[in-house]
């Protein structure tokens, strides 16, 4: 399913960071766990094509996305992945409906405010967003924004979904409900997931296979050591 071996050296001033991630996962749901600064987001960006590793390869669902020795480096546009950004990255000048329809329209113009696409209406309804389809993202709550971002990613029928700390931007009191909501929504779509998080409860709930990232290195971890019952304070 997922086969990654990438190296990247980042330098800012005199400090440098070595990312050296090697992992293989055969599971539908893979979780990458680690503290902030361990290289989780960097790994996710490399898979999405937003960061080019110095060397190595990335294979996802049987497709070669990147191979430094093979000279393969698919553009982010060609990777057909869904990416849920930590703060959702909704387009602030477009309505909820336009945001969801964004990936369906390829030209230089954004989808029209009133444009109706069957897929868009389907996701708006199944995510409970139909009532706010004409609103701007700035008028929505955190949970609603997350659902818009998820709908926007799923409309394009991605081959896999990358989730960057999906609950970190939410109020702790909301997190529990949102986890259940997201699980229920994801159950509607059978799609491979890669989730990165620093929260053990996310691991317990979403992971089928889990890797821990420490100082830019990935280690296979035992899922049983992560429990939903032990709430941690961030």
């Amino acid at each position: 399913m997922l086969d990654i071996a990438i190296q990247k050296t980042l330098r800012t001033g005199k400090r440098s960071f070595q990312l050296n991630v090697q992992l293989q996962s055969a599971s539908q749901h893979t979780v990458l766990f680690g503290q902030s600064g361990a290289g989780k987001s960097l790994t996710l960006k490399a898979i999405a094509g937003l960061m080019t590793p110095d060397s190595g390869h990335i294979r996802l669902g049987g497709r070669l996305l990147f191979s430094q020795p093979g000279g393969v480096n698919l553009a982010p546009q060609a990777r057909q992945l869904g990416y849920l950004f930590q703060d959702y990255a909704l387009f602030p000048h477009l309505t909820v409906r336009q945001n969801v329809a964004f990936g369906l329209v390829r030209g230089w113009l954004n989808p029209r405010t009133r444009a109706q696409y069957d897929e868009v209406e389907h996701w708006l309804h199944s995510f409970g967003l139909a009532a706010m389809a004409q609103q701007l993202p700035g008028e929505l709550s955190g949970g609603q924004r997350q659902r818009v971002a998820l709908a926007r990613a799923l409309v394009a029928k991605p081959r896999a979904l990358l989730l960057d700390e999906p609950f970190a931007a939410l109020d702790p009191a909301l997190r529990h409900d949102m986890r259940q909501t997201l699980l229920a929504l994801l159950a509607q779509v059978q799609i491979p997931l890669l989730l990165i998080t620093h929260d053990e409860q996310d691991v317990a709930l979403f992971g089928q296979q889990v890797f821990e990232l420490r100082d830019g290195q990935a280690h296979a971890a035992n899922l049983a050591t992560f429990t939903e019952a032990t709430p941690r304070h961030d």
Partner: protein
Amino acid sequence: MDTVWVALALSLKVAGLATLLAALSGVATGFVLARGRFPGRDVLDTLLTLPMVLPPTVLGYYLLVLLGRQGALGGWLQAQWGINLIFSWQGAVIAAAVVAFPLVFKPARAAFEAVDGQLEQAAQVLGISRLAVFFRITLPLAWRGILAGILLAFARALGEFGATLMVAGSIPGKTQTLSIAVYEAVQAGQDDVANLLVGVISAVCITVLLAAGYLAPGRLAQR
């Protein structure tokens, strides 16, 4: 009184075309300097801002040296295409465009830098090409700041005097713009003409400034 309307029409033509040139080049340069990472970026920014600070006569002199028959660019234009920009209204357009350029370029760069790069990345992951991302995400989000700069550039181009006089001279009906006509009228003691010219140009500038203030970022919530 005919001179007034001839001069006004010429001024609007020159300032309009100069603003168009400054807008296109200013937006493009602002984007490159906001997003590009290359050595000499700060030096380039300083050089491109220079027309805002240099005395217009100095700028006009530089342009004369560059565009004149003996100049590097002027000589080539003359030899290759038979084009002479000196003492022509096209020369006035170039002079006004150079003077107005930093007024577009500076706010455009700031506006592009204020656009969250993650939004552009999100659009790319959704399958949208870089060029389309620019027109669908980057430009709409930076537009308000750019438009305010364009209006200021228009006001500046309309009031251009020094560089225009050096490059294009003061030929009535050909290169004599409003601001130059004011000078000529006062020199010739035609107070009634001068009064009318000054009134017209003041009204136009006030209108443009009001529009720019209305569009400036922060006045209206962008989100």
